[in-house]
């Protein structure tokens, strides 16, 4: 029997009109089929929850989330100083390149690792009230985007400091970040559900992303690969970083990274939707 049949919750006829005024549509009555859309649409919920997480983490800290800003500054400064020499690059070019790559990579890998924990971490809530599981994932993604937005401006400032100027392409940063975020959402759903069922997936993902860092042009450039440039060409992380890096650096905008990133969204959400339809109602049993 289909999942929807087993768990048919129709809002009370009289209540429907009231409910629309008081609470979100489908918030409780959603199924695996509309979990993702219901969760994504409830923006004010995950915005508030994610923001709350950030405030919570830094409630008694003087610098608060600006610790990320400082950490980025120190990391990029030191590594840029060292590796520009090691790789024989001009520091004024290399430092912004490295900085953007590192900040975006940090987002990708943290979102993936926390995505593994998205359902397990929200376990006590999932076992108490019914709300779209996607909310827990969006909360995590938004939290990490806030962190990203605390680090990225430093790199842009460093770039300006080294005498580069921003181009009109900089505006592409907005769709770029949106694409990055959506990719984090589907991967959070997929990893979150898989990790709830199979606890070994988490270390596997952790290891993959550790290795991924070295395979992705963050500290080095794709052009350094020469004959093995295909390693960067087929690396989705490279494309995801590129859609953020190119607009900021003002390097020529290629179509390829954007197509890759969009294709990833479609494939990823298809997988996430499939898992939701099949396993939405099982997740509570696995926690």
């Amino acid at each position, binding site marked *: *029997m289909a*999942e929807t*049949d*087993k*768990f*048919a*919750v*129709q*809002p*009370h*006829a009289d*209540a429907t009109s009231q*409910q629309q*005024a*008081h*609470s*979100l549509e489908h*918030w*409780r009555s959603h199924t695996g089929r509309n979990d993702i859309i219901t969760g994504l649409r*409830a923006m*004010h*919920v995950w915005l*508030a*929850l994610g923001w*709350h997480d950030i405030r*919570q983490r830094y*409630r008694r800290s003087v610098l608060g989330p600006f610790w990320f800003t400082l950490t980025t500054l120190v990391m990029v400064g030191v590594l840029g100083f060292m590796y520009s020499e090691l790789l024989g690059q001009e520091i004024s070019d290399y430092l912004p390149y490295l900085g953007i790559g590192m900040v975006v990579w940090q987002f990708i890998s943290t979102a993936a690792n926390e995505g593994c924990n998205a359902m397990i971490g929200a376990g*006590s*809530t*999932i*076992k*108490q*009230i*019914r*709300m779209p599981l996607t909310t827990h994932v969006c909360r995590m993604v938004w939290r990490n985007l806030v962190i990203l937005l605390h680090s990225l401006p430093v790199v842009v400032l460093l770039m300006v400091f080294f005498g580069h100027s921003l181009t009109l392409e900089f505006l592409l940063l907005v769709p770029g970040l949106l694409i990055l975020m959506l990719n984090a959402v589907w991967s959070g759903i997929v990893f979150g559900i898989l990790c709830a*069922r*199979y*606890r*070994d*997936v988490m270390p*596997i993902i952790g290891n993959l992303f550790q290795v991924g860092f070295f395979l992705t042009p963050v500290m080095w450039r794709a052009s350094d690969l020469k004959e093995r440039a295909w390693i960067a060409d087929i690396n989705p992380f490279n494309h995801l970083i590129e859609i953020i890096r190119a607009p900021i650096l003002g390097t020529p905008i290629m179509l390829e990274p954007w197509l890759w990133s969009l294709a990833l969204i479609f494939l990823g959400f298809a997988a996430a939707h499939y898992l939701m339809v099949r396993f939405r*109602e099982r997740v*509570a*049993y*696995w926690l």
Partner: protein
Amino acid sequence: MTVHIQAEKLCVEFPIYENSHRSLKNTVMHLSTGGRIGMNANQHPVVRALNEIDFEIREGDRVGLVGHNGSGKTTLLRVLSGVYAPVRGRLSMSGRVASLLDVSMGMDPDATGFENIYLRGIMDGLLPAIIRAKTDEIADFTGLGDYLNLPVRTYSSGMLLRLAFAISTSVEADILVMDEWLSVGDAEFSEKAQSRLDVLVSKAAILVIASHDPKLIAKVCNRRIHLEHGVILSDEKLDPVASDAAATA
């Protein structure tokens, strides 16, 4: 459509994943070797909490769930509140459900009282405007005053309960699901709390409450379902006259 709950052959089973079962290893081995190991790998021990139960609850029903520990009462309440979906069988419900299973659910000790009111509200799917409108009423009811601006970890356990109670009873529901009758606070607050709860219960079209207290069941319920080992042993109407007598006795 009227408010009602109907269950047909409702089954809830909890799979027990031991360490060896929970990993990918066995699934992978299952794929590669098939045969005997595969059979073992996929057969997790299962706890059947609810076993093919049928019931129908209509508007006006005040159902008391009774049974020993582990008889499936809480599981049934969680199924009704939408946390666990039936593994087999069918459950259909119409009406807005509110569950008071764990009142201090989702309380963040480091957040202030007001923040907790808001966070709980959005997790219940309420629109921000509605939560804001309710906040004053909740704050008033707790009687905590300026304490609501402090992190709740600074509260005494009694104060924490007051806040949790006020938040979770600020709902409007057609179907109210409760695990034991709530009672909180000192004598004065307790009285206030009882009348608030009475109002909430009287507004709901259906009440389902699990309790170990026969007097309470006799007082608030007009129907008693006895669960044991996940099956319904008896489902009987309670005579209101008899229950009045029992309540005064």
